């Protein structure tokens, strides 16, 4: 690469108008914050729904006057109906998986941080970036509309006019009731299949299809940016692990979202155009034969859904793994242990993630032979996951740990990831799924590993990069209190879920009192509810800290954490063009901490070669620190 010509600064000024600067902005940093605010909005809805679910499970039949006022049909007299509960289940899952776990880690932090960490002044396609956010936002609005279309009689009546079967609204639920997996034919039949199956499902499908488009645009942008826009000296093996994680996530999104989009379109056609992709012949529903449908396959939907759905788990967690690796190394004041192994492990997890979707379908009626193959591949994913865990602990070994709030959440991530991931060994075995499939054991597993661990990664990322984003520190005292209550709280919620699973408690039941074999579960159910209410309440402190610190927090320096990567070489918050028109040059790997002989205990990636890293410290898996000179 020619070096001299780039050294002349050519600045890009930010747009002057409010709309172009903050609303329809092309700046990856503004778009990143927009994604984070979207996730912060969606997560409130998702959390509120989970609290309502816990209230219904712990105190079934209780009159909650406010519920009766808000949802006269779904909670008559303030008592939540079974279908109302199931719509909470569905919308909680949809909000969390799509609009929280897919937006904040990638669209939010990835968007903001990745271009800066590789030394670019923006994403490769800024206009596409703006489009991907606003498309996603429209998807969010459509999902909110599903709540009102089913939950409000007036809005429901408007939709009913669009078509009796597919669009009927006002059934009193807060959206569809088929779960976030929306299994056909329940989701394909329309109003005849019960409450919440009209406009609730149709709008759900449209929302998710729009979301798929937004994610695809984003994925294209991430891949192009990372491959083409790295600055001088930023070889692939000098990239922070965060960038590897966001890159792999983008590849997964690029390959998996189109499948869900296709599946969603077919499902929509089954509902509104009379096709039969997922509806078999001879259906007899609610006392009548279903005419004009034949030949569809319910299993086809499951295959399409999970071909997307399993990589989606990694789309949610990989950015958290990246952030955790990055933050652990920074506050351990140690290079990441086994950089190269970490990169391979991220890629192995991403690749294998495409070959295991069938483990969601062991009991579905698909070929039992393919179940065996899926099962063995599934347990293989444990290997790269274990490698990552070993390397995280290896990073902490011999460290000088600074217990800042982001570090606490990163350590919490490791703990929760292990706790949630390890039960994959149970659930990945066909023989054990005879018992555990669709029990609370599954709910425990995926909430810990996909939900809580990812969120811990995002909390760590928020506390870590907030000073860069807003030029002010978040309040440490509030942050630590938030960590302690959340850390203990999530275990108190999700460890007892395993015990419920041991009893055989099925998921997605609005009430457990019908079954004798569940009668010993009440104490557990109540315990979890109390823990959930406490844990959700403390999140208000996080919100307060977030917005309060934005204006009142302590002013941040350029590099408050004494970190090494490129984002810490520029002002907090960064200027519109990131590097003020100067192209940075990278001389070192991303995690050069505590280098013997160096004047400080960290070497910035941009520090010239004069500060030579002492090499040859025995066997190492390398981090490219000296391997790539210009």
């Amino acid at each position: 690469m020619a070096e001299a010509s780039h050294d002349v600064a050519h600045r890009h000024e930010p747009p002057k108008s409010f709309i172009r600067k903050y609303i329809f902005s092309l700046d990856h940093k503004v778009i990143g914050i927009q994604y984070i605010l979207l996730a912060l909005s969606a997560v409130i809805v998702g959390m509120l729904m989970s609290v309502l679910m816990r209230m219904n499970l712990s105190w079934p039949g209780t009159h909650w006057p406010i519920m009766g006022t808000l949802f006269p049909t779904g909670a008559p007299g303030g008592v939540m109906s079974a279908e109302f509960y199931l719509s909470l289940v569905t919308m909680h899952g949809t909000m969390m998986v799509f609009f929280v776990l897919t937006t904040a880690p990638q669209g939010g932090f990835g968007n903001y941080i990745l271009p800066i960490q590789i030394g670019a002044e923006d994403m490769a396609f800024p206009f596409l970036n703006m489009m991907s956010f606003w498309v996603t936002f429209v998807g969010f609005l459509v999902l909110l509309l599903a709540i009102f279309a089913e939950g409000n009689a007036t809005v429901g009546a408007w939709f009913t006019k669009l078509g009796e079967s597919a669009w009927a609204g006002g059934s009193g639920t807060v959206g569809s009731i088929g779960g976030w997996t929306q299994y056909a034919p329940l989701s394909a039949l329309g109003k005849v299949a019960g409450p919440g199956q009209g406009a609730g499902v149709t709008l759900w499908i449209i929302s998710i299809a729009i979301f798929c488009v937004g994610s695809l645009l984003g994925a294209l942008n991430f891949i192009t940016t990372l491959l083409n826009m790295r600055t001088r000296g930023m070889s692939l093996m000098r990239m922070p692990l965060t960038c590897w994680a966001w890159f792999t996530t983008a590849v997964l999104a690029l390959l998996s979202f189109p499948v869900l989009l296709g599946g969603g379109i077919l499902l929509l056609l089954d509902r509104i155009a009379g096709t039969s992709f997922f509806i078999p012949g001879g259906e007899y529903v609610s006392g009548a034969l279903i005419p004009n449908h034949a030949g569809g396959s319910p299993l086809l939907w499951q295959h399409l859904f999970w071909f997307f759905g399993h990589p989606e788990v990694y789309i949610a967690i990989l950015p958290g793994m990246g952030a955790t690796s990055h933050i652990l190394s920074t506050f351990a004041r140690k290079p990441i242990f086994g950089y190269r192994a970490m990169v391979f492990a991220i890629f192995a997890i991403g690749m294998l993630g495409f070959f295991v979707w069938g483990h969601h379908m062991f009991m579905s009626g698909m070929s039992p032979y393919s179940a065996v193959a899926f099962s063995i591949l599934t347990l293989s994913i444990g290997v790269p996951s274990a490698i990552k865990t070993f390397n995280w602990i290896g990073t902490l070994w011999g460290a000088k740990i600074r217990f800042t709030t982001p570090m606490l959440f990163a350590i919490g991530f490791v703990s929760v990831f292990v706790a949630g991931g390890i039960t994959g060994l149970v659930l990945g075995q066909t023989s054990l799924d005879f018992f555990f499939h669709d029990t609370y054991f599954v709910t425990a597993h995926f909430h810990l590993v996909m939900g809580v661990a990812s969120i811990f990664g995002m909390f760590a990322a928020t506390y870590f990069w907030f000073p860069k984003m807003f030029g002010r520190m978040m309040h440490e005292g509030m942050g630590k209190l938030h960590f302690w209550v959340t850390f203990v709280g999530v275990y108190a919620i999700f460890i007892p879920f395993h015990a419920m699973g041991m009893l055989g408690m099925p998921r997605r039941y609005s009430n457990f009192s019908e079954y004798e074999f569940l009668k010993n579960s009440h104490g557990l159910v109540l315990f979890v509810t109390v823990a959930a209410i406490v844990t959700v309440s403390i999140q208000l402190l996080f919100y307060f800290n977030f917005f309060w610190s934005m204006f009142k927090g302590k002013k941040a320096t350029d590099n408050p954490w004494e970190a090494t990567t490129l984002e810490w070489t520029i002002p907090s918050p960064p200027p519109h063009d990131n590097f003020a028109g100067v192209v940075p040059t990278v001389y070192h790997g991303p995690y050069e901490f505590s280098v013997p002989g160096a004047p400080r205990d960290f070497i910035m990636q941009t520090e010239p070669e004069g500060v030579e890293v002492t090499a040859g410290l025995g066997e190492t898996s390398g981090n490219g620190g000296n391997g790539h000179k210009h």
Partner: protein
Amino acid sequence: MGRILAIAIWFITVASLWMFLSHRWWFPEAISEHGPRVDSQFAITILVCGIAFAAAQIGLGWTVWKYRDSADKQRATYSHGNNRLEVVWTIVTAVVFISLAVMGQRVWASLHLHAAPANAYRIEVVAQQFDWNFHYPGKDNLLGRTKPEMIDDATNPVGLDEADPNAKDDAQVKTLVVPANRPVELILESKDVTHSFWVPQLRFKQDLVPGMAIHVHFTANKVGKYELACAELCGMNHFKMKSYMLVLPENEFDELTALPNDKGQFLTRKDQLLAKYPLPTY
């Protein structure tokens, strides 16, 4: 801060392990031939999980306890890793995990990769929102033909075609009655949406998918009455799509299935037997 965090991690570890080790919340007693094999495979797996979980958490706790920042000027150890360690833990976890995976196929293979034994008693199961129907072959041991057009929820829930001579002595009941110690083959179907057949004590679960007839088999070996639940979300009343599975001594079962069904004798006797056996105590 490091010490408190270590103690918190260890406390959580102990509490989590206690939850499993105390056996306070555990499987209901197994009542099928393959059930104990499922339980022992689980015992091996959860032991491996427990050891790995405890080792990781104790190790994590140890590092945050030991390597918290102190006032001295000493720097952290400068190391980029250790290839030999990477190879060792990759191989060890691969061997352990893949071995578990292979072991974890055995019960599955014994039930799903073999056809039902020749002496298996065949029962057709037809699920619907939010009810279970069981179709018995009657004295001739042959299941009559069913057609969706024949379905009448009150009188003919499985849609039995009376024109078929094999259907003449067939019975349709709302309870699953099976013999003890004799293989049973279920033909699982659904009229409307996907349901799932789930009897915790049986250690068996299988979806019922509209448009498919899924053949499964198992052998129950403990006489008694057990709850049968739906395990796949099927609509608003999913939580109460409930029935019972009655496991009868072979003589009682033979006597029941030999009854003619022209005046509902099968039904009457089945109800008597259902009342005779209590549910397990939990």
